C-alpha cells in the first residue's frame, strides 16, 4: 500500500492511472469488510457493545490507517507517528478491529473483549493497548487533546498529523467548540476532524435530540476548512486525505455522512444498533452477512487486478 505521504513525496499525481486507483480502492474495501468481520469476532467473545456507531466509521478508519497515517506495528511508539484520536470513544470496537487489521493488535486479543481486565475495555485505554492515544469515552475530549497534540508536534518539530473522529451526537459538548476556536486561532493545519454524521444517537435522530446543522457552516465560521463527503465511500475518504490540508493554515473538518450500523442486516440506520446485544441468531446472521461481504470484496479485488 502506498500511503498518501509517500505519493506526495514521490511527486506522483492523480494521473498515475485509474486502474491503479481502482485496485487500491478495491483493496481498501476488502480491508473494510474484514474490519467489520473483526467487530463481530469481538461480539462472538462477548455479545454486547456500541456496535452501530463503530460500524459507521469503518471506512474512515481503514482509509486513515491504511492510506494516510504514518503508523503501523513498527511505529507504535515513534514520536513522529501520526496520531489518531477516537473522541467518540464508544466506537472502540472499530478502532480495536482496525488495529488488528493493520497488524498492531494480534487477532486473538480480540477474543478477550468483555473479560475483566481485557486490553479491550468498553472505552479505549492507552495504558492497555498499543495504538490507543487517549482515554476517551466521555464525549467531548478528543478534539481538545488533538489540539494539544498538534501544537506539541509543531513545538517539537515533528511532522506528525493528528486525526480525530467525533460523533454527530457528541457535537453539543461545549469543549468541542472551545477546541474548534483553539485550532483555528493556532492555525493547526495538521489537525483533521472527521464528524461521523450517521444522524442518530441514543434518544433518536440527532436532528431531533439537539440539532447542530449546519455542522459545515459552524466549523467554517470558526475558521476551519470544511468538506462534506459520503463517509462510507472509501474512495471519497481517500480523496480528502490526499488533499490535506485543504487550506494552508487551517484545520480541516470532514463532515462524513454515514449509515449507523452499516452492514448489520436489518439494523442499518437504526437507533437499536447503538448498544447492541445480539441474540445468537442475530449474531449468526450478521456474521453470515459480513463473511459474504468479505467474499464479495475479495472477488472484486481479483476482478480489478485482471
Amino acid at each position: 500500500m502506498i500511503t498518501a505521504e509517500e505519493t506526495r513525496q514521490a511527486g506522483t499525481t492523480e494521473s498515475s492511472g485509474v486502474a491503479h486507483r481502482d485496485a487500491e480502492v478495491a483493496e481498501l474495501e476488502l480491508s473494510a469488510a474484514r474490519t467489520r468481520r473483526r467487530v463481530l469476532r469481538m461480539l462472538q467473545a462477548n455479545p454486547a457493545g456500541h456496535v452501530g456507531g463503530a460500524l459507521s466509521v469503518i471506512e474512515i478508519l481503514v482509509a486513515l490507517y491504511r492510506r494516510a497515517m504514518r503508523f503501523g506495528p513498527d511505529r507504535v511508539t515513534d514520536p513522529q507517528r501520526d496520531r489518531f484520536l477516537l473522541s467518540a470513544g464508544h466506537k472502540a470496537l472499530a478502532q480495536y478491529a482496525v488495529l488488528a487489521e493493520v497488524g498492531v493488535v494480534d487477532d486473538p486479543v480480540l477474543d478477550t473483549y468483555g473479560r475483566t481486565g481485557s486490553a479491550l475495555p468498553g472505552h479505549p485505554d492507552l495504558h492497555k493497548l498499543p495504538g490507543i492515544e487517549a482515554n476517551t469515552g466521555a464525549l467531548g475530549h478528543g478534539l481538545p487533546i488533538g489540539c494539544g497534540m498538534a501544537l506539541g508536534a509543531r513545538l517539537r518539530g515533528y511532522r506528525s498529523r493528528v486525526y480525530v473522529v467525533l460523533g454527530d451526537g457528541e457535537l453539543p459538548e461545549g469543549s468541542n467548540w472551545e477546541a474548534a476556536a483553539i485550532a483555528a486561532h493556532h492555525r493547526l493545519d495538521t489537525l483533521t476532524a472527521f464528524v461521523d454524521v450517521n444522524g442518530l444517537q441514543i434518544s433518536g435522530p440527532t436532528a431531533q435530540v439537539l440539532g447542530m446543522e449546519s455542522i459545515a457552516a459552524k466549523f467554517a465560521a470558526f475558521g476551519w476548512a470544511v468538506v462534506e463527503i459520503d463517509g462510507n465511500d472509501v474512495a471519497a475518504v481517500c480523496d480528502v486525505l490526499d488533499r490535506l490540508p485543504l487550506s494552508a493554515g487551517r484545520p480541516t473538518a470532514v463532515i462524513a455522512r454515514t449509515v449507523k450500523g452499516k452492514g448489520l442486516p436489518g439494523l442499518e440506520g437504526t437507533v437499536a444498533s447503538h448498544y447492541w446485544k445480539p441474540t445468537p441468531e442475530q449474531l449468526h446472521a450478521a456474521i453470515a452477512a459480513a463473511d459474504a461481504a468479505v467474499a464479495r470484496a475479495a472477488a472484486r479485488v481479483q476482478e480489478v487486478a485482471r
Partner: protein
Amino acid sequence: MSGGLQDPRKTFGAAVAAVAESDPRVVVLSADSGGSSGLGEFAAKHPDRYLEFGIAEHGATGAASGLATMGLVPVFCAIAPFVTCRNFEAFRNDVGYMRQNVKIVGRNGGFTYADLGATHHSLEDYTLIGMIPGVVVLAPQDPAEIRGAVRAMIAHDGPVYMRIGNDPLPQIFEDDSFTIGEARQLRHGGDLTVVSAGYMTPRVLEAVDAVAGEVDVDLLGLGTVVPLDEEAILASARRTGHVLTVEEHYLRGGLGGAVCELLAGVDGVIVERLGVPHDYVPSGRYSELCARFGLDVAGIARRIRQAARRGGPRDELGSRRTPITAAAGD
C-alpha cells in the same frame, strides 16, 4: 425482603413521573439520557415538561439553575460521572453557590457500568458533590427508598444530588417513607457497627445476616450521605467501639472518610473502611469486580469476621491505623 428485583432506573423514572403528575413545577432535563433514566414514558406524556439538551451536561446544569430561578424544579438524570465531574463548576457555582432548587441524579453510580471502563465509573461523587456547601447527597438503598427519596428531594427546597445504581435491586423496606438525613437501624448488635449507604445496603444486610451468630452487628443503613446522621453513628460507635464502613466509592473521602471525620475526636473508637482503592477500576464484569474489591456478599462477610477477630479497643488488639486498601489481607 419483599418482591422480586426491581430496575433502579425504571423505579426512579416512574417515581419522578408520579410526583410530576401532582407537581407542575417539575421539569425533566435530558442530555441524551432521559430514556435510559427511565423517563421515556414521562417524555411521551409531558413533552412540554421534558427538555432535551443533547450531549451537553455542563450546559444542562447551568440551564437547570436558570430554570430553577423561574420557580421550576428541574430534575436532571444521566450517567453519574457526567453529572458530577463533567459539569462540576456549574454544579458548584450555578446550583450550589446560587443555592438553586435543582435535583441532579447520577445513575449507574460506582462502577456498576463495569464493562464501560473508568470514564463511566463514579467513585468520587459522594466526596466531590458533598464538598459543595449546601448540597444534599442521597443514596437510596432499595426500590422503596428510591421512590421515597424522589419525593423527598423534590419536596426539599434546595440543591440535591442523588446516586442510583444499575443492577436490579431487591426491596428490603416495607414502605417507601424517606427522611433526608435519617439513618435506619437495620440490625441491633454490640460487637461491631457497620455503616452502609445506597444500593450496597441489601448486600451488606445479606452479609450481616450470614455472619449472625458469630458477629453481633449493629447495622446502620444510610439513604443520605450528606448530611450524615451523626447522632445515630455516634451512638452506635460509642456502644460498639468499632465501626466498619462499606461503600462502592473510593476509600479516599466517601462515606468512610466522613465517618472518620465524625469520629476523629471520639475516644476509644476504631474505624475501618471497606471500599475501592484509589486507582482506576478496570473494565470488566460487575460481579467479578465486586469480588475483586471484596464488595460482594462473601467479601463483606469476610471483612466483618476479620474486623470482629481484630476486635475493638476493649481487647487492645486493634491498631488505630485505618487500612487504606480494600479488603486488605483478603
